[in-house]
């Protein structure tokens, strides 16, 4: 029996709520990073609802990883692109 989209989003919110004290004790910059991760988990709510697994937190982690993987690929491409565009940098100094 599949879960509906709303229930999975609710599960994410419940997870966030259960981490409330953890989040409170984080530095502000780390709180922002945590919020970004859970935003990624919410983005894949429909896939999560479709799978309907007993332990939804694993699916949330996977969803976070998917977003990170995509960002990694994008950044790698950007770096490669910049390296081809910037002409011959003076050779890196050998450590003196």
């Amino acid at each position, binding site marked *: 029996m599949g879960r509906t989209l709303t229930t999975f989003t609710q599960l994410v919110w419940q997870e966030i709520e259960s981490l409330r004290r953890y989040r*409170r004790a984080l*530095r502000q910059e780390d709180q922002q990073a945590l919020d970004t991760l859970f935003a990624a988990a919410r983005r894949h709510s429909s896939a999560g609802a479709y799978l309907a697994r007993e332990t939804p937190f694993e699916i949330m982690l996977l969803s976070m990883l998917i977003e990170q993987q995509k960002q990694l690929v994008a950044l790698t491409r950007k770096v490669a692109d910049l390296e081809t565009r910037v002409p011959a940098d003076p050779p890196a100094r050998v*450590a003196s």
Partner: protein
Amino acid sequence: MRPACLPTRLRGWLLDAYADRAGMAVWLLDEDNRRVRLLDPFRPTFYLAGPRHALDAVLRALPRRGCPLTTRWVERHELGSPDPVPVLEVAVHQPSRFPTLVRRLLQQCDQVQFYHVDVPLPQRYFYERGLFPLARCEVEVTVDGTIRAIHAVDSPWDTGYATPPLTILELSLEGRVSNPNHGGVCNLIVRVEGEERCLEGDDGAELVARLNQLLHRHDPDVILTDWGDSYILPRLLTLASRVRLPLALNRDADRPVGMQAPRSYFSYGRILANAGARTLYGRLHVDRQNSFVMAETGFPGLIEQARVTKVPLQHMARTTTGTGITAMQLETAHHDGILIPYRKREPEEFKSALELLHTDQGGLVYAPVLGYHENVGELDFASMYPSIMTRFNISPETVNCSCCAHDPAARVPEIGHHTCRHRTGLVPRTLIPLLSKRAQYKRLLAATADPMTRQVLDQRQTALKWLLVVSFGYLGYKNARFGRIEAHESVTAYSREILLQAKETAEHRGFRLLHAIVDSLWVHKPGATRGDYEALARAIAARTTLPIMVEGIYRWIGFLPSRVDPRMPVPNQFVGMFETGESKIRGLEIRRADAPLIVKKAQAEVLRSLSQAQTVVELRAHVTHALEIIRAYRHYLQSGRASLEDLIIAKSISREPQAYRHQTMTAIAARELLRHGVRLQPGETIHYVMTDAAAPLAEDRVRAVATLDGAWSYDARAYETLLLKSARVILAPLGLNPTDLDDLTNPGSSRA
């Protein structure tokens, strides 16, 4: 000295008090500068509770002959219980017999609860009469020196008190740096009233006679020594008995010198040694080398602690700060008519707020953001734990009281406990005057310019700070006499909540949290002025209702990496330069007792050079100069000219020398001393030099300083390694890697 005819009224300072046959012997330094021995017919009491037949058995066991006693039934309270209990009060007419009597009863009667049996009698006497060590008092006496009335005319809570004009005689050993018990022979130096003499030990009888002469002529109130407890006094007494001459160390000629065996104990997670004690009657012996409070706060700090805790000066000098705070708690209990239960042994010294960080998870910590930062403000909560205990009324008997369970304002954050909103607890009542006296000293300090007065005020406030620091461990913890784990948990829960509130307030105002430990925060905001940091402190104080102050604004501060993993930050390890030009350093060799002097000197020079930098960019520019300094020190080490003082490594031994399982340098040096017949106890400090750190034979690696003779040489390479380590921790965050550091400071290398 018992003057035949005394005036009926005396004024003076209370020098000493101890149990005697017919009461308490009380020594007064009177207004005519005389030292008089008086007697107060004081009868100490103790209390017993238990089943009727057991109490009857005690009554039968009480020896009446030779030691008169008075018994009666009275009602007293147990801490935290509203109903009084009937207890049997026993008054002992001869205080000097009190300890033996109690010890015997404790052994014989195991069905009875004992109360008030192990509070030292001088303290009981002080509680009863409202006195304290070195109090200024007024005494009414009879012609034979018996006290009819005595009362203090000043208060232990006065901040402007005068100390009596004490005559001090100092005894030390010529040119000693390390423990004389570990070897070597030396002459006795006597300093008194501005004169210094050297007494040579060739003729024992003459030495004793000359010392007696000085004691009679100057009649000192205090004998201040270095190594007096473990070395000088024991040897002088042995010498005196060998040459059959009495040594007039005691002012009370009827008494022998008091003796206590050495012991080892735990404090702040480390094992420490107490070298035993040689205490005097009518005169005070204080050994600077066997006194935590003397080392931390000097004689003014010792007097301050003795006055507020009412622990006699000689005892306060040698005991732990925890005993002092416990004594204050006992006094509060005694005045409230609360029974003080007997404890078989005092608990170990508890941890400071900072120490809890590693062991207890009690306080909250934010690991520092590694590296050097500019314009950083440090904000400190003033005496956070004691302030929490008083602000939120945390005490063993107020936590989870029966009257406030449903009051939401009484709730402790995070955990299910609550504290009483109706009655102020024993612990807060003990701490409130202490907190306010320290605050008064700090205000006086801020308004005083004279350096001598400032030093005394600072030593006094530091002495109170130590009592406050240990108060949490002693008053909140389950092992303490009135301790309770729920009180301990409540304090740490509040401390976490308060640090979180402080963090939120700072972040809300746009500050970044760089580092925080329990009661201190380091925060940064680009362009923030002193006014902004002060405003932040006020906002935090308003939200948390606890006092917090700006400790200072750092021009720059470096949070330094772990020596094991350079990517790991370490709490409370930093070097910072305040905008005032003062520096603050934590966790570096320069602050460590065990680092050799040469390493400390080099590190101090590097830091002095870096301190000229105004910005982090300028810091990087100073690295070259820092490298030159290290290079010069390595050159000096390699040249073989380093002196013994430069090279000594001082380590405290954590166990008996035979009990070490690994061949650590400390173990090797300890065993060398053992072979020379030196008896060592855990916690004692030993001194050694590294002679050949990589030698295959363990005995060749290090030598104990006390056994060094003419022929020895040091391992320059091993000291260079220590030097490089001490430089690396500072310079690595400025972009210098270990290989470069080694190469660029190598005196033999062409690269520098």
